[in-house]
């Protein structure tokens, strides 16, 4: 048999692949990471809030040197209707002390920096190369076929860290075709503004403090969509993620959606006068726990978005990618001691993930995608009722408060129905238990 070129080959240099590569390289394992972009990060997009703790565990105090934008001290949720906005959220000085909870980032810069750390740890990063298929021997994965001339590379184990458009797990039959209910399309713009203007508009005292706004509500017309506005140092990241099935069903163009969001009376003052610097799009695997593929095969493991590890409610993805990459690398290191890379040995990766917060969190929300698919009105009806009720309470028109309350209760009865309210509360409670 042909000699191995590497012990481990990782496909994709996003956070998942880089984390796996880092752990392996630190253990002196001969690892290559294959990336199709000109450099790691050049093809990657996220909203961009990066949670510190999973990476801090690998590279302590990384935030002191990594290219980050602002640390986040306030997180808000805005419920929009066409003409109104109801806001909830938390600003805390506890988020304003090192080592910080999370940061806004640009992936093109952040991934590039992370990749440098990984190659400094002596992993080999091969850019501008696409892995086209797996090389199998008697059903076991033994290498990858790239689009380079004579581009076959052999190894003990391949780790698929290809992100949401992964096809290697499918080629092994670990999952079926991805369906339009399990993925969202995210579109985003980076809008440049002077940092002083951003500080004033978002109520922070200097250019390292940041704010996030998550946007939902009746404005999206029962679409499973979320908008966001995040502060960077000299720009805002403004975007929308919408489930693809809904985009198709409602014949929506994602750029039109983003444009109308930017013109909403609550968003417009935030972005006004800014200049768009970049427009981008990427899919988000939002199907949750039940949409995950089988995560291992003989000589093969799947990490990050390729494994559908995204917690869309908390917009966590990059940190789950890092955590899963770490656990896959540890599994390899264990398996290597016994020289056993069979699926039985690699199934320990699944166990590690189950014991970590990654799958514990995905399990907590496992029924949510289905619930929202069946009851799309939950995202619009209740926030709409809340906005209308608040409007009544604040609107002083010489109607006594007691009558207003009666009015609001009547509206609840007529527009939603007491019985439906109880049923909805029960089903949400049952599904989140």
């Amino acid at each position, binding site marked *: 048999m042909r000699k191995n070129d590497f012990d481990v080959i990782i496909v994709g240099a996003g956070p998942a692949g880089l984390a796996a590569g880092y752990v392996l390289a630190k253990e002196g394992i001969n690892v290559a990471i294959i990336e199709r972009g000109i450099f790691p990060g050049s093809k990657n997009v996220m909203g961009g809030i990066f949670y510190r703790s999973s990476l801090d565990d690998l590279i302590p105090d990384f935030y002191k040197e990594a290219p980050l934008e602002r640390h986040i001290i306030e997180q808000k949720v805005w419920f929009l209707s066409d003409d109104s906005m109801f806001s909830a959220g938390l600003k805390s000085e506890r988020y304003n002390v090192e080592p910080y909870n999370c940061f806004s980032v640009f992936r093109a*810069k952040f991934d590039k920096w992370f990749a440098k750390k990984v190659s400094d740890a002596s992993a080999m990063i091969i850019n501008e190369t*696409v892995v086209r298929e797996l090389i199998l021997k008697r059903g076991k994965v033994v290498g990858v076929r790239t689009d380079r001339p004579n581009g076959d590379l052999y190894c003990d184990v391949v780790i698929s860290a290809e992100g949401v458009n992964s096809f290697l797990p499918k080629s092994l039959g670990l999952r079926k075709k991805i369906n339009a209910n399990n993925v969202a*399309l995210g579109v985003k713009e980076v809008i440049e503004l002077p940092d002083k203007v951003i500080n004033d508009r978002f109520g922070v005292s200097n250019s390292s403090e940041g704010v996030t706004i998550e946007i939902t509500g009746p404005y999206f017309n029962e679409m499973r969509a979320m908008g966001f506005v995040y502060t960077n140092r000299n720009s805002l990241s403004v975007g929308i993620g919408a489930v693809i099935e809904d985009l198709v069903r409602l014949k929506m163009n994602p750029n039109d959606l983003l444009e109308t969001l930017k013109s909403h009376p609550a968003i417009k003052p935030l972005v006004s006068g800014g200049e768009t610097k970049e427009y*981008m799009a990427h899919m988000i695997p939002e199907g949750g726990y039940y949409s995950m593929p089988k995560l291992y095969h003989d000589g093969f493991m799947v990490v990050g978005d390729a494994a559908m590890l995204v917690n869309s409610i908390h917009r966590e993805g990059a940190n789950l990618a890092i955590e899963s990459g770490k656990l896959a690398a540890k599994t390899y290191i264990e398996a290597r001691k016994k020289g056993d890379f069979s699926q039985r040995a690699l199934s320990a990766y699944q166990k590690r993930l189950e014991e970590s917060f990654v799958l514990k969190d995905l399990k907590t929300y496992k029924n949510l995608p289905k619930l929202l698919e069946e009851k799309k009105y939950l995202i619009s009806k209740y926030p709409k009722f809340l906005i209308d009720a608040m409007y009544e309470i604040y609107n002083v028109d010489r109607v006594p408060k007691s009558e207003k309350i009666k009015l609001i209760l009547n509206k609840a009865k007529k527009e939603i129905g007491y019985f439906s309210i109880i049923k909805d509360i029960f089903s949400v409670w049952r599904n989140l238990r």
Partner: protein
Amino acid sequence: MRIEDKLYLIGYNIDEEESHLGISDPNECKRCQGRPCTYVCPAGVYSYDDEEEKLSINYDACVECGTCRIVCSYITWRYPRGGFGVQYKFG
């Protein structure tokens, strides 16, 4: 802002030699209901010419999100060759 104007802001390394997007059976487009590819693509890559009864694919504008391949199984989708395609400055 129109999509066309936004696409000017994106860096691309265009592969002049080969398209990474295609249609396995162009006849399907003639009878396709609603032609979702023409409105869901965030980069406006697909457009349908009613007179010529033909779908045209402006593959250089593609940002490689993969959405078209989820909505239509007649689209043959693959990654551009290594180093080609979209190249973000921020991401």
